[in-house]
């Protein structure tokens, strides 16, 4: 009978815990801390949680503390939907979300419940609030994200690659290849980006598949050599890219890798070591942690020290900061914080930056017809000069073994036909 007792006890405990928070301003934070994308999810979630804690310690929303709850959903979309329903029962006003599948699963729910949803998925499909755009699958009026869409970041990398090709005096037609798994996330920018690469003058080779999890990618690297790719876009997340860079380094592949925003950061550089040298990555923020400016000083305050913070942490801080600023704006306008109020405030601003983060977060503009907040993409190149084994990222950066160098900044035109796609 012990099993029964245990089951009953836990069920009772669950009932008691069920709904704990019913404060005025409740913000939910969906994070992947243990699931398939935890390698990049932890730093981003830390950025968001630290920023909310800092805003609470510094006045909250006109003195009201933001009730903030982080839940780890382990990258399982059905769990995300269930957590979301729980939060709605507790009158959540806004949500910081995470992955592609769960964000897209919640589009219609958040639109109906009028809850602004800031995702860490930057899928182009989330950028059309009206659903009128030619190629957008549907309206996503309450979805926001800070950063360039996956499609735009990839287009910017294609443009940088083209400029790089011209500057290096390359001859003939350069070859561009999209590398990624058969999965919604790496697939998201493929068509949009390939079309733009063709428009720029690239010859676009057939897509090369590699899995979302790390494996031996020798075959893929051989294919890269075979097609003679000049630029290869890495569409998967960090773990798979580490394996890819290692496999290709072993074969001496000379293709220039360009990576999506989630595919390359200081942790990848540390794990892949010399193999990660020279990779180019799209970056969402105007500065990185080693820069010396007031916004980075604020980030250090938020992080509670000058321990090194990776790229995703900074993006998390920006995402949280935009949300808090919008909540404050909504409160000033209506004396209360509501989903529609937050949305209205965001859509009324143009080229705005949260207070104190000028120089970190790019000025962004979301309008009632266009949720492509950011069309500017910072382009960085990673340098790894020496052994990285057994050392911390912070030490490696401090010793100069690893560094990120800005090699460009691309501002794309806001083409109407790119909306929602």
């Amino acid at each position, binding site marked *: 009978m012990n099993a029964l007792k245990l089951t009953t006890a836990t069920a009772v405990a669950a009932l008691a815990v069920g*709904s704990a928070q019913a404060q005025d301003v409740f913000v939910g934070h969906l994070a992947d801390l243990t699931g398939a994308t935890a390698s990049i999810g932890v730093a981003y979630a830390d950025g968001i949680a630290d920023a909310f804690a800092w805003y609470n310690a510094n006045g909250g929303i006109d003195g009201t503390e933001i009730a903030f709850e982080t839940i780890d959903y382990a990258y399982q979309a*059905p769990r995300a939907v*269930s957590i979301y*329903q*729980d939060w709605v029962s507790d009158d959540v006003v806004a949500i910081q979300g995470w992955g592609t*599948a769960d964000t897209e699963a919640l589009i*219609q*729910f958040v639109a109906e419940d009028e809850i602004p949803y800031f995702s860490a998925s930057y899928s182009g499909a989330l950028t059309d609030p009206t659903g009128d755009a030619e190629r957008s699958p549907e309206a996503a009026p309450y979805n926001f994200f800070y950063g360039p869409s996956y499609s735009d970041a990839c287009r910017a990398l294609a443009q940088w690659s083209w400029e790089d090709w011209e500057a290096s005096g390359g001859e003939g037609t350069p070859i561009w290849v999209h590398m990624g798994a058969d999965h*919604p996330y790496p697939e998201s920018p493929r068509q949009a980006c390939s079309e733009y690469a063709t428009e720029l003058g690239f010859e676009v080779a057939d897509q090369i598949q590699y899995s979302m999890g790390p494996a031996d990618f020798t075959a893929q690297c051989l294919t890269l050599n075979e097609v003679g790719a000049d630029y290869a876009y890495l569409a998967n997340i960090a773990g798979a890219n580490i394996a890819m860079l290692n496999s290709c380094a072993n074969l001496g592949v000379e293709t220039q890798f360009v990576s999506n925003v989630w595919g390359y950061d200081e942790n990848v550089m540390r794990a892949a070591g010399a193999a990660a040298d020279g990779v180019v990555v799209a970056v969402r923020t105007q500065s990185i942690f080693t820069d010396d400016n007031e916004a980075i000083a604020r980030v250090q305050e938020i992080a509670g020290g000058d321990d090194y913070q990776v790229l995703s942490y900074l993006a998390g801080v920006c995402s949280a900061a935009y949300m808090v600023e919008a909540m404050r704006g909504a409160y000033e306008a209506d004396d209360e914080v509501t989903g529609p109020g937050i949305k209205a405030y965001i859509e009324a601003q143009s080229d705005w930056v949260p207070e104190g983060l000028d120089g970190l977060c790019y000025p962004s503009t979301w309008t009632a017809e266009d949720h492509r907040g950011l069309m500017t993409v910072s382009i960085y190149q990673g340098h790894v000069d020496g052994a990285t084994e057994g050392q911390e990222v912070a030490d490696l950066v401090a010793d100069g073994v690893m560094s990120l160098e800005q090699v460009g900044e691309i501002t794309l035109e806001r083409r109407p036909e790119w909306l929602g796609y």
Partner: protein
Amino acid sequence: MAGIQFRPCGDFRTSYRADTTIFDDRFSRNFVIGLVIVLALIPIPTVFDLGFDVIDRYWTNLLINIGFLSIAALGLNILVGFTGQISIGHAVFFGFGAFSTVFIHENTGLPVFFTIPLAGLLTAAVGLIFGVPAARLKGLYLAIATLAAQFILENFFARADWFSGGTHGARAPRVELFGFEFRDAQAYWWLVLGYVVVMYLLATNLMRSRDGRALIAVRDHYLSAEIMGVNLTKYRILSFGIASFYAGIGGALFAHYNRFVQVETFNIFFSIQFLAMVIIGGLGSVMGTIMGVTFIVLLPEVTEGLAGTLRGTELAESLNLEVGLNFMKEMAIGLAIILFLIFEPDGLAHRWRQIKAYWKLYPFSY
């Protein structure tokens, strides 16, 4: 019901009719009927705007999840528990049902209410095809053959833009019937509950029929069954068809509740989870299936609740648990399942029978 079970003394039957009743005794029957009525009454205040809710959206969501997963898991239990076959690709049939209800609705314009059973039939057809290897294979070999179904269909979902919307997924509309839109989640619960009742009655009755007994005979001793004239090939493949039909119905209900379906959901992990549900519930037990599903659905919620109470407390801080708590939560789920299998290998259905037997003879139990 079906399956080998020892009856407690005093529990005897005097006719075949009495031996094949759906419920063992009157109490069980009244209990289940009462439970269904109570569950059916829950949404009334919300749907008719009486100003209060019996349960909030969180619990409604869990109930609905338990509902459609129970239907799909029952299919797997018919296949694994009653027929003794194995499938580690059940999630893709669940997914096939989800995609096909949207596909049928978009291409024929039929109201969603009617596309749900059609999706079940279409999935059953696909299941029959993938069940063909069962005619020749058994045990581990069959398991690997069904693994192929998992990968083939997963790839199909990711590539067939015309059917599933490719990797971007498909939008599923709301269920509408004669102008009544199942807009509220609680109204949707009625639909799910209706399907649960119908599908469970169907399964129970199937097991009381000639075909049901044939399925059980195939499981218990296929050689004897064949000698007795049971067509092994037919019944093995048929059980795949039935399992897929149930999965398809469950998947279609999932699609119109979630209103968005994408290939990523129907991975092998989800298939394994279905197996866990029927094993924990009790192989070869219709009612046990619901218990197993409830267990698997509530377990992460319970661990999350426990983690939530610990989070931010001095105990967690002094032990520096803040980061580890999330990992402990995931590990606790695994641990609970392992412990469960050690101490309750026959599933929740068995435990439930023991509890009933205990109270039946109370206070003179032996």
